[in-house]
């Protein structure tokens, strides 16, 4: 029966090409708009490290004074220097990485080579293995290098291209903030979006151009900041001047915990640590710890920009209007066929069969609208990419959106078709047959 209905639907399309075309166009425009924004939303809220995210956790403790005005219950996002070092040395997690970022003057180790300011991430050895950063040349530095404050550096592919023309630069030297560093490795392009590990500079920015051992980096004669800091109290020496001040949080810390037992154990260790600091009088607040998984962390930080949410609502508003439009056109189209439907009913078709026939016709409009909507969505994504927003690069067409676009198109066309089809199936056969 379906084949016959399909045949009828196509036939009816040919008979009223303008009406059918308008319906298809309306669905296509609605789908184009909504799929564009769905694709953007999908990419922005995607999992930055699929396969690894389940084992990555973000520990937080609360070193703030008890009476901080305007303070929320949630502990600060980042750690103070002392907590960062203490948690780093806690050693309960199989892997952990301590980090922050700034920018530093860099030049090749040759006379008169020009200086450039380069963004860097200071971190510890596990960073690369824990987050699965792929190496082209060399390897990460070791935990031993961290402990001995070794002057080693890992470059990004782009940085290696810029400094060494893309060749294997392992073992070569660089001058970073007046100190000489040896290249330990070069990593391939790696920039998971959202940049979950450090959201302070926005969730959809670029990755840093080089990586330095955290404790070596702290030793540098630098005055380039220690990444965005959150300080309280009135100590003029805090902040940029003294990153080790107790009232400034600025270091990001991530741990890998592979089993639920490890997670529970780590959470207990955090509480125990906070309680101990509380007893020592360093923490004024009772233990207020968090251990969010990567995905929960991104949820909590609400990384999706407000404008994207608003534009998504507007896009679905467009789809709604297009659907209302399609309902109107379908009513017209089915009513125009009243005579035909009357004959079918007189010849024995049940209301249900007429209803189904009309729905099939609506479905065909949906498929056509979806197919036409795909290039429109592609165009829409191109437009989003032209915008100067940090997430522009995320506006890519994901193959999984292809199915979603067609499904959404057929669903909206069917939804638009239900009521017109019901009306059509209620046509009184006698009246129609008489007027033929």
């Amino acid at each position, binding site marked *: 029966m379906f084949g016959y209905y399909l045949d009828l639907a196509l036939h009816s399309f040919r008979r009223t090409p*303008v*009406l059918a075309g*308008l*319906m298809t*166009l*309306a669905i296509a*425009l*609605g789908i184009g*708009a909504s799929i564009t924004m769905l694709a953007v939303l999908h990419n922005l809220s995607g999992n930055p490290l699929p396969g690894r995210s389940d084992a990555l956790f973000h520990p937080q403790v609360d070193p703030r004074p008890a009476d901080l*005005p305007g303070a929320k219950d949630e502990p600060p996002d980042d750690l103070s220097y002392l907590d960062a070092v203490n948690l780093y040395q806690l050693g309960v997690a199989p892997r952990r990485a301590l980090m922050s970022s700034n920018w530093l*003057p860099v030049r090749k180790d040759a006379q008169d080579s020009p*200086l*450039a*300011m380069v963004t860097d991430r200071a971190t510890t050895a596990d960073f690369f293995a824990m987050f699965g950063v792929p190496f082209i040349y060399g390897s990460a530095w070791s935990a031993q290098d961290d402990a001995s404050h070794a002057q080693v550096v890992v470059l990004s592919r782009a940085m290696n291209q810029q400094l060494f023309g893309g060749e294997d630069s392992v073992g070569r030297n660089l001058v970073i*903030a*007046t100190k000489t560093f040896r290249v330990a490795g070069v990593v391939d392009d790696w920039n998971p979006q959202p940049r979950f590990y450090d959201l302070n500079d926005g969730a959809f920015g670029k990755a840093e151009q080089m990586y330095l051992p955290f404790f070596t980096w702290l030793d540098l*004669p630098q*005055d380039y900041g220690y990444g965005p800091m959150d300080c309280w109290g009135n100590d*003029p020496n805090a902040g*940029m*001047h003294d990153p080790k001040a107790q009232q400034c949080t600025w270091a990001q810390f991530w741990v890998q915990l592979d089993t639920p037992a490890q997670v529970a154990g780590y959470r207990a260790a955090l509480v125990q640590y906070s309680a101990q600091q509380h007893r020592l009088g360093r923490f004024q607040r009772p233990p207020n710890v968090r251990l969010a998984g990567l995905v929960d962390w991104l949820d909590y930080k609400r990384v999706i920009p*407000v*404008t994207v*949410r*608003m*534009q998504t609502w*507007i*896009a679905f*508003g*467009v789809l*709604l*209007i*297009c659907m*209302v*439009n399609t*309902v*109107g*056109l379908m*009513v*017209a*189209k089915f*009513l*125009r066929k009243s005579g035909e439907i009357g004959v079918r009913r007189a010849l024995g078709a049940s209301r249900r069969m007429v209803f189904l026939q009309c729905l099939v016709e609506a479905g065909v409009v949906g498929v056509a609208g979806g197919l036409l909507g795909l290039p429109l969505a592609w165009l829409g994504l191109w*437009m989003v990419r*032209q*915008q*100067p*927003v940090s997430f522009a690069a995320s506006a890519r067409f994901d193959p999984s959106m292809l199915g979603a676009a067609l499904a959404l198109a057929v669903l909206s066309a069917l939804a638009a078709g239900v009521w017109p089809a019901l*009306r059509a199936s209620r046509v009184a056969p006698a009246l129609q047959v008489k*007027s033929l």
Partner: protein
Amino acid sequence: MTIHPMISALRKHKAGVVLIALQIALTLAIVCNAVFIIGQRIQRVNRPTGLNEQDLFLVSQQWVGAPAGDDADSIQKLDALQREDLATLRALPDVESVTPTNSLPLLNSSWNGSASINADAKLIGGNARTTYYFGDENFLRTLGLHLVAGRDFNAGDVINKGFRNTTEPGMILVTKALGDKLFPKGDALGKVIYLDGSGTPSTIIGEVERLQVPATGGWVSAFTWNATIEPVRLNANFSRYAVRARPGRLQAAMREVTPALYKANPMRVLDDDSVKSFADIRKEAYRADVGMAALMGVICLILLGVTAAGIVGLTSFWVGQRHRQIGVRRALGARKADILHYFQMENLLIAGIGAVAGVALAIGLNLLLMKHYEMDRMPVLYVLAGVAMVLALGQGAVFAPARRASNVPPVVATRAA
């Protein structure tokens, strides 16, 4: 023409009428708000900063291996480096004037605080929020600011201090907006205020007509025009200089900067972004606004197009359905114009119903956006313009089908249905 038969005819097409009206209502609601967003963005982009933006550019640079600025001695060394740079820039042939500065309007890098008319006020308890600009006696001249009261800084007023030194200067310039906020009688000149909860008085020696804050985000909307200018060269291991080129010599002056600064002192970093014209700063600051306005424009066009197509489709259907009745009316003496007007009036009626519902929806949507997305209240003018627009859209869309209807010959009446 009487409305009564039209309404009873429409009763027979309730579904179609409701759908067109609904579509017009939704379109009106979204288009009104979208146009309002576009209007707001355009207004934002076009507001003057208070600067003379022509021939103005900014130099940002970083010294390498410079003293840290921890003690008085190293601050004097940093100041010497800065004064050397200022002298170098002022000596360039295409440069008219130069001032050190910490930021510029639209640069989105700012130092903000609060001003109070009382000493030792709590930081949050200040009377007005303000942004700080730090410059020397050439600040006003270089940026092209207008002094409306009092006097400009002179060379003797200018001091230097370390970047992290929070002592307040004895004299300041404020914008008229900030002055009037603190002293509503408009007599701010010569008065004393306290900055950032300090106990040191700062005397207002002059008022500047208009100067925007560096930040452009929504969070500064409460103090966009509240600026304080301090006669201070800030000393850190980086510096910024606002430079005014001689009229028409902007490009030439910008080209001269990097080589001249490197020649004066090679221990520094200047990259591609270090020398930036104010036109580029403006463009970058407002790129997102322009993008948003364009996107909203596209959405409006789509919606209006779809709605027009819907009206054309349904009216065409009605014309076909009433083919015979039209013939009968024509045969009974109705002129072509009568038929045309009938469909036009009918559309006006439906669009009118839709517009009334749409006004309510538009205001509702605006309230929703105000609640969730930091929107302002939409002026009534936008809604009225929207109503006029959808009515015109309806008339435009109905014209072709109505013309076709009016061309139905009277002879149709004689044919069997």
